[in-house]
C-alpha cells in the first residue's frame, strides 16, 4: 500500500528536475516540496481538463436547437455517486499522505545542526552568529544542515526563503524554528511574508550560501569590523545592518522616525511638550529604551535594541549620528558611558 503511494511520488520528478518550469530554481538538491507540488499540478490539470472538457462537450453536443427536447435520464444513481465520491477521496488521500510525509521531513531537524539565531523587527532581519556577530544578511555554510531559531521584537513577521522552500512565522514572545540544507553556493532572496506594516515589502535580506572555508573566513572578518573601522564608519554599517535605515533617513526626510541629519546637539521637542537636547546619553536612551521619550509627531513604534547592541555598537552609532551634523556639537557630552551601568548588555 505504502509502496504504491511512494511510487506516485515520482510523478512529479521530471518537473522537479527541470529547473524553473513553474517553481523558482532551488538551492537544495533534495526539493521534496517540488515533487509534491508538481504531483498536485499534474493531478489538478487532469481533473480540470476532465471537468471543463465534459462541460464543453455537453454544451456543444446538447446545445438548445429548435425541435430537440431534453431527453429524460435517470435522476439518481448510487453507483455513479459512489464512484465520484470514492475516486476524489483516494486522490486527496494520496496528496495528503505525500504532503504530510514530505512536511515531516521538513520539520524534523537532523541532529548536529549548525545553529543560528534570528531576530526580526520592523523592518529588518538580524542574524546572530555563534561568535556574537550580528548581520543583516544570512550567511550559511553549504551542504550542512542549518537551524534558525527565531523570535520577533515587535509584531509577527514571516521568514521565507523561496529557493529553500522554507517558511515560518516569526512571533514575538516565543521561538519558532526552521532548518534546511543549502547545497548550491550562491545568493538567494530571503523575505518577510507576514504583513508587518509600512515597510513590509522592504524587509528583505540575502542568503549567502558559501563553502565552509569561505564562510569561516567571512565570519571571522565580519565580527572584527568594529575594531578595524573608525567608529563613525562602523556606526554607518550598524545603521544599515541593524535596520535603523528603515525608519531613520540621513538626508533630512522624515520617515517612520525622525531623520538623523544634523540632529546632534539640537533641541528636540517631545510629545509631552518637554524639550530635550540630543546628546550622547539621549541617543543611548533612545536606542535602549525608545519609549522613554517620544519625539513629537511620531508614533512610539521603535522597539528596544536592548540585548542586540553592545556598548561599543552604541558608541559607534553615536559617532555616526554626530558625523551627520556639519557643525561641531554645541556641547560636549556631559559624561561618558559607564560600562558598569548594566543597561546595555554587550559581551
Amino acid at each position, binding site marked *: 500500500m505504502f509502496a504504491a503511494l511512494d511510487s506516485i511520488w515520482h510523478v512529479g520528478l521530471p518537473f522537479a528536475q527541470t529547473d524553473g518550469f*513553474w*517553481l*523558482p530554481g532551488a538551492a537544495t538538491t533534495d526539493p521534496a*516540496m517540488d515533487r509534491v*507540488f508538481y504531483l498536485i499540478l499534474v493531478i*489538478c490539470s487532469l*481533473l*480540470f481538463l476532465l*471537468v*471543463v472538457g*465534459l*462541460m464543453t462537450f*455537453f*454544451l456543444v453536443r*446538447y*446545445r*438548445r436547437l429548435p425541435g430537440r*427536447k431534453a431527453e*429524460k435520464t*435517470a*435522476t*439518481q*444513481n448510487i453507483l455513479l*455517486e459512489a464512484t*465520484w465520491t470514492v475516486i*476524489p*477521496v483516494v486522490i*486527496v488521500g494520496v*496528496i*495528503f499522505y*505525500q*504532503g*504530510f510525509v514530505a*512536511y515531516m521531513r*521538513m520539520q524534523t531537524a537532523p541532529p548536529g545542526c549548525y545553529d543560528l539565531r534570528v531576530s526580526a523587527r520592523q523592518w529588518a532581519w538580524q542574524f546572530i552568529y555563534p561568535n556574537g556577530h550580528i548581520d543583516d544578511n544570512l550567511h550559511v555554510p553549504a551542504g550542512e544542515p542549518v537551524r534558525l531559531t527565531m523570535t520577533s521584537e*515587535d*509584531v*509577527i513577521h*514571516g521568514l521565507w526563503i*523561496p529557493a529553500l*522552500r522554507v*517558511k*515560518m*512565522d516569526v*512571533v*514575538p*514572545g*516565543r521561538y*519558532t524554528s526552521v532548518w534546511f540544507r543549502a547545497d548550491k553556493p550562491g545568493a538567494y*532572496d530571503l*523575505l*518577510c*511574508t*507576514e*504583513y*508587518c*506594516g*509600512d515597510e*513590509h*515589502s522592504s524587509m528583505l535580506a540575502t542568503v549567502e550560501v558559501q563553502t565552509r572555508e569561505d564562510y569561516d573566513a567571512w565570519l571571522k572578518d565580519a565580527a572584527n569590523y568594529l575594531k578595524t573601522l573608525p567608529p563613525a564608519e562602523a556606526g554607518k554599517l550598524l545603521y544599515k545592518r541593524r535596520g535603523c535605515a528603515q525608519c531613520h533617513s540621513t538626508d533630512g526626510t522624515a520617515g517612520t522616525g525622525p531623520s538623523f541629519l544634523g540632529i546632534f546637539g539640537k533641541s528636540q521637542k517631545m510629545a509631552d511638550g518637554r524639550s530635550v537636547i540630543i546628546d550622547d546619553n539621549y541617543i543611548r536612551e533612545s536606542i535602549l529604551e525608545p519609549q522613554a521619550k517620544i519625539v513629537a509627531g511620531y508614533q512610539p513604534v521603535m522597539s528596544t535594541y536592548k540585548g542586540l547592541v553592545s556598548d561599543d555598537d552604541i558608541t559607534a552609532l553615536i559617532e555616526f549620528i554626530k558625523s551627520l551634523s556639519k557643525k561641531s556639537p554645541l556641547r560636549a557630552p556631559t559624561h561618558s558611558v559607564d560600562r558598569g551601568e548594566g543597561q546595555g548588555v554587550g559581551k
Partner: protein
Amino acid sequence: MDMMVSSPTPPKSYLVDPPGLRSWLLTRDHKRIGLMFLAVISASLALGATFALLIRTELTFPGPTIVSTGHIYNRLFTLHGTIMIFLFIIPSMPASLGNFVLPLMLGAKDVAFPRLNLASLYLYVGGLIFFLLVLVLGGVDTGWTFYAPYSTSTAAPVVLAVVGVFILGFSSIFTGINFLVTIHTMRPPGMGWFRMPLFLWALYGTAIIQVLATPILAITLLLLAVERTVGIGIFDPALGGDPILFQHFFWFYSHPAVYIMILPAMGIVTEVICVFSRKHIFGYKFIAYSSLAIALIGFLVWGHHMFVSGQSPLVGMIFSALTFAVAIPSAIKVFNWLATMYKGSIGLAPPMCFSLMFIALFGIGGLTGLFLGSLVTNVHVHDTAFVVAHFHYTMAGGALMGFLAGLYYWWPKMTGRMYNLAQGQISAVLIFVGFNFTYFPQFIVGSRGMPRRYFDYTRLLDTHPEFTFYQILSTAGGFLFVGGLVMVAFVLLRSLFVGRKAPANPWGAATLEWQCSSPPPHENPPAPANVGDCYVFDDFCFDESAQGYVKVP
C-alpha cells in the same frame, strides 16, 4: 422606482404598493428589503472594486506607481479586503437575493421575523457608516485579518473598523436566524425537506454558519477593541497575551465564513443549471447533503491558515486531513451538475453563462486549494500571491459569479423588466477573460517568490525579472474584469428604462417564485395546494405571445 404596472390584472406590484418613500424605509416586506440590500451591497461592490483597481494599478510597475508609500498602499488593500468580504460577499447572496426569493419559493407570506429582517438592513447600513468613517479618518492598515499584535499597536483607527465589522456581524446573524426559522416552520404542506429547491438547502447551510460562527468573530473583535482601549493583555505578548490565540479565534469564524460566501452561490448554480438544461436535477439528495456537509466540516478546518504560524505539526496534520475532507462535497456537487447537463437542451442565457463560468473558475480555485491543503506545499505558497489568486478564484470566480448568475436570473422577477440577453452574454465574456488575466499570473508569481500584501517588488526583480510582465498582464486583466462588471450594471439598469416587460416565467423554471407575476404583488401568492417536484419542466412550454413560459396542464 416609478415604473411599470400597466398590467391589466389588478394586484399592483410590490414596487409601488404601498406607495411612498416612507413605506419603503419602514417596510417589512422581504422583497423590498432584498431589493434595498441589493442596492447597498452593489454600492459596496463598486467601492471595493475601486480599491481593487487602485491596488492593481499600483502593482503594475515596480516601485511607487500611483501611491508614494507602503503606508498608503497598505490602507488600500485593507479597505479592499474588508469591504469586499464584510460589506459585499457575505451579505451579497443571502441578504439580497436570498431575502427576495426564499419566502416566494416557499409560497410563504414573508420571512418568519420581518422586523428582524428590516433591523438587519439597518444594521448593515450602520456598519457601512462606520466603514465610511474609517475611510474619512485615513483608513486602517491591518489587512482584513486584523492580526495581533500589529492591530493592537498600529496608529490607525482599528477600533472603529472593528466595531463596524461587529455591527455587520449582527446583521448577518439576523438574516441567518430568519432563514433557519422560516425554512423550518413555513414550508407549505406537501413540501417536505427533500422537496425544497436546492437553493434553500444552500441557504439553510449558510444560515447555520452565520448563526454559529459569527458570534465568535464578534467576541474576538470585541476582545481586540478592549485590548486596544484598556490595555488588557489578551493577544499582545508585550502585555502577556498570545498572538496565536487571535489567529485561532479569527479563523474559527473566517474559514466557515468562506462557505457563507460560496454555499449560496452553489445553490444558485444548481437552480440555474437545471432550468437552462431543461433537466431534472441529478442526485438531489447528494447535493442537499453536501451543502450540510460543507457547512459542518467547514467548522473543523480553520487551522489550515496557520500551518506556518508555529502551530504543532500534529495539529497541522489533523487540519490538513480535514481540509481535504471538505473538498469532497464540493467535488460531488460539480459532478452532479455535469450529470444534470447530460442530454439536456442547454440554453446559454446570461444566468447559465455565469453558472458555467462558476464551474470553471471555482474549479481552478478548488483545485489550487489542494496545494494549500497539502502541508509541504502550503509552507511554500502560504502568504504569497498564489494564495491571493486561489481565494480570488473561489471568492470572485465562485461567489461573485454565482451572485451575478442569480442577479441575471431573478432580475426580471425583481424588477419586472427583461434585459438584453446578448449584452448580458458579452458582459460574461468580458468578465471571464478579464478575470483569468487578472488572477492566473498571480499563481505563477506567487509560487516563484512574490509575497502578498507587497507594495514594492523592485528588489525581487534581480532574481525574477519576469515579474513585471505578469503584473502588467494582471492589471490589464483587472481593468477588463471591472469593465465587465460595469457592463453588467449597464445592461441591468438599462433594462429598467428600455427593457420589455418581463413575463411571469421567462426561463421556464418550476420553482414557486416564477408562478406569480413579475414583479410579484405586495402579498405573496400562497403555495398551491399540491406542491410538485420543482425540477420537472415538462409542463412548461414557451409561449410566443407572452414571450415566456406558461404551464400547460
